[in-house]
């Protein structure tokens, strides 16, 4: 296939945290709301006058200082973020919103706060830690509404004069939905038998929507969508279609590595992925926008921290539904090394998807930067693909899939 016109541009944006679009938005006088964890309601960070950026740490190498603070047994994402903040890599941000999504991300944010590793020379800089519900129910919606008021909206208004009115939230949701629509339309091409976009390309586009000001991406995303409509795909060269599921993953290199082995990543159900992260938020006239946003985040959440059994079962059903919709031959569960929630979710999910839904499943843990153990991972993925191919030869392929 011909290269996408803007792929290089998007790839470059992801080389550093403080990318050109952040600088541009800051130069326009907007405040940068840095946040951690997918459980943060994104539209509330993209109100007029501010923009949300989910923190990540591309090109991470040494994490020695963070390892001193958090030991070598903590999730590498958290250590990479702490290391980057100590290096001063997040000083463009005007505040940090940290939901208590998991113990380690919480400790990461607390270390950043105790070390005053962000917000240098900014008297208005604030750190906010917020509770996010542990179950999908209306009690949880009520909690999240209160938490968003106390830990996002009020501080933004008080420190930076951001308009947090109903109209402002509705406008932010409209922007959010626009980006979601673009990403999902682009992502739908992955359902094709002979897809016109690679999993890697899609991962680049999706990641950009988390770590760049959204309003500055719309033009190029729209152009990319138009380009894809007429893009000629290569002859089908993929050995197997994989659905990648799992924990925090902001390294498109991981998707690239999988596809280099001959697989096609047809769907992305991980933190920083588009499913369900880029589902549109439905607003209604019967309910205020803040409650609707929170309702969306509570009920659509696929994070393993939601512990009610309905959710535990429905997360696996959701994977099954995606696998069918996107025509996956197998499922790859990935977990960032030392992540407790996904350690258990990966084990239970793999068992259920194998036993109940009859999919081939590969469960792996991986480092933050895949380049630090690319060889091992490549071998495992290759072996998995071969096992799927053997099953196909034996007529036992397409488990559970039409």
């Amino acid at each position, binding site marked *: 296939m011909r290269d996408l016109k803007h792929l290089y541009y998007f790839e470059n944006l992801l080389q550093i945290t403080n990318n050109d679009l952040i600088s541009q938005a800051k130069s326009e006088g907007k405040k940068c709301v840095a946040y951690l964890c997918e459980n943060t309601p994104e539209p509330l960070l993209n109100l007029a006058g501010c923009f949300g950026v989910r923190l990540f740490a591309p090109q991470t190498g040494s994490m020695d200082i963070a390892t001193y603070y958090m030991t070598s*047994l903590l999730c590498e994402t958290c250590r990479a973020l702490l290391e980057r903040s100590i290096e001063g890599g997040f000083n463009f941000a005007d505040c940090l919103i940290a939901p208590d999504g998991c113990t380690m991300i919480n400790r990461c944010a607390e270390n950043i706060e105790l070390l005053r590793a962000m917000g240098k020379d900014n008297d208005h800089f604030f750190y906010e830690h917020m*509770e996010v*519900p*542990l*179950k999908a129910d209306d009690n949880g919606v009520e909690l999240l509404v209160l938490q968003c008021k106390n830990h996002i909206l009020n501080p933004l208004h008080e420190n930076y004069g951001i308009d947090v009115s109903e109209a402002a939230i509705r406008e932010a949701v409209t922007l959010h939905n626009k980006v979601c629509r673009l990403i999902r339309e682009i992502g739908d091409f992955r359902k094709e038998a002979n897809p016109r976009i690679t999993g890697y390309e899609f991962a680049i586009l999706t990641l950009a929507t988390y770590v760049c000001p959204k309003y500055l991406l719309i033009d190029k995303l729209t152009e990319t969508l138009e380009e894809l409509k007429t893009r000629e795909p290569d002859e089908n060269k993929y050995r197997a279609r994989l659905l990648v599921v799992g924990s925090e993953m902001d390294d498109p290199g991981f998707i690239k590595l999988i596809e280099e082995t001959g697989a096609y990543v047809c769907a992305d159900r991980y933190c920083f992925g588009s499913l369900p992260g880029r589902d549109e938020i439905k607003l209604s006239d019967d309910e205020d926008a803040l409650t609707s946003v929170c309702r969306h985040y509570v009920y659509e959440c696929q994070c393993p921290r939601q*512990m*009610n059994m309905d959710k535990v079962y429905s997360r696996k059903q959701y994977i099954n539904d995606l696998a069918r919709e996107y025509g996956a031959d197998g499922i790859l569960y990935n977990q960032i090394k*030392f992540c407790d929630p996904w350690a*258990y979710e990966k084990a239970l999910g793999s068992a259920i998807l194998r036993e109940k839904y009859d999919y081939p499943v590969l*469960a792996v843990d991986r480092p933050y930067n895949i380049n630090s153990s690319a060889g091992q991972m490549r071998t495992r993925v290759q072996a998995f693909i071969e096992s799927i191919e053997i099953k196909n030869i034996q007529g036992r392929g397409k488990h559970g899939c039409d």
Partner: protein
Amino acid sequence: MDVIKNPNKIAGEQSIAALYNDGKVRKRREWRGLKDTMYDFGRWLHIWGILVNVSMGRGFIKGLFRYRWMANYLAVPHMVDKFTVGQRDETLKITHTAIDYVVYEVATIVKGCLRGDRFAGNDKKLSDRTVAVDENAMTAYMMGFPTLFAAQREVPTLFSANLINQYSAVHYIDVAQAFGIPGDVCPMPETEAGVSIEDDLCVIGKCAVQVNTTCDGSMMGNGIMARRLEEDYGIPTFQLAAPIRFKSEDVQKYAAEDIKKAIAFIEDQTGAKWDWKHYFECAKRVNNTTRNRLEWLDINSTPYPQFVGAVFCLYNDTNYMGNCGRNPEFPSIDEKIMKLVQKGYQNKQMMAPEYRHRCVVWGVEPHFVFDMLYWMMLCWGVVPLTDMLSMVIKDQIADEDTPENREQAYYDMAYLVENMIMRNHTHGGYEALLDELWECCDKMNADMVMLWEHIGCKALTGMHGMFEEQARERGIHLVWVSHDLCDPRIYTRQAIRDQFNQYMRTVMREEPLDPSIEVLPDSYAW
């Protein structure tokens, strides 16, 4: 701190080194002088009496053959010996009064679980009025159900089994890892998950209530166990959500509402009705427990601490978590302990020949599984004044039955659940883990902190650097002692002691009070 020397010679043998060999059972009983040896022997017989009583219960024989963990209970008397090592006079009596009652409580749980277990006693009537609850949870939501049995199924399989036999969890850890759970998670919920995967938990209860207790691992392990209960045995489960940032005012309503839902769930499933009169009786006992514990801590903050060590921690754990005011016998045990503590304090009773350092024990603790805290006193003269798990409930809850208090009660139950032992420091932000340690050091007049660094505990290790920096700023000696909780293959008992020995020799430049016990051949000892 100034060294305090014990003016009294310790009765009986002067060193415990002679008791240990490489086996599971010690070479012989400790000679504590005639009076204390006879007292100790009498209590040893009492423990056997409790065990015989359990063995007469319905379902015991079937349970013995079905469950791998049952065999551990033959070693209960050895566990008690482990906690009384080197003790004399009031100290010995305090420990026995407390731990013997803990043994009785656990025996009651084991007996009940086996009686109602579908594969052992199969007492359906009992099972139908049973709610299976988390072992590591504050059972506050059961305080208004006097007719129901709260079965802490994991207590006999993991927690108490591991106190008796340090290797009891190893098989189940392997089972969990074979299932796909990595080896880097906390082995405690991993063991629980392993027991469930192997279907080795008693199957009892009309329903079950799970709580997100101390950590992400514990919360996630619940899913594996609930699946077994619901899909294989048709026992519905309720997941009670306790907020993580529980110190914030803006999460309390959420927590209280979920308590209401849990109670409604239990009522629906069992047909039992919430009894406010009984609830407030239990609340009075919880308050009594808190008052007593705070008074013991006050005495421990003086130069002559009395009720310390693993048993102080275990007694608090049993009294608050499994009991939570529901057992009317605890206040009389508290009273007995209080009399002994006051007597010991008046007599300036000491537990070692010399007190050199006053130490707060912090972090996620494995000291239940061996005699580390008593050893620290005997070997190095370091007194463990209190520990993180014993720094639990501080506030009184509403205990008069009024219309306002009935609404307040949901918030009080939420407060108890949120502040359950260990969770009240591993969650709640760094303030609960870091700041409260330094407050505790000030209150207890401590000059040293022994920090149990559980390598699988992310909440704790995530603050490693901050502990070091802040201890340095405050001039407090911080001894890191790493371990992997109930997996002794990672850190053996001696590997744990060696970390303490090295700090005392190289950093403190001290010599032990009793060099003969720096190294003990007790890796396999019960």
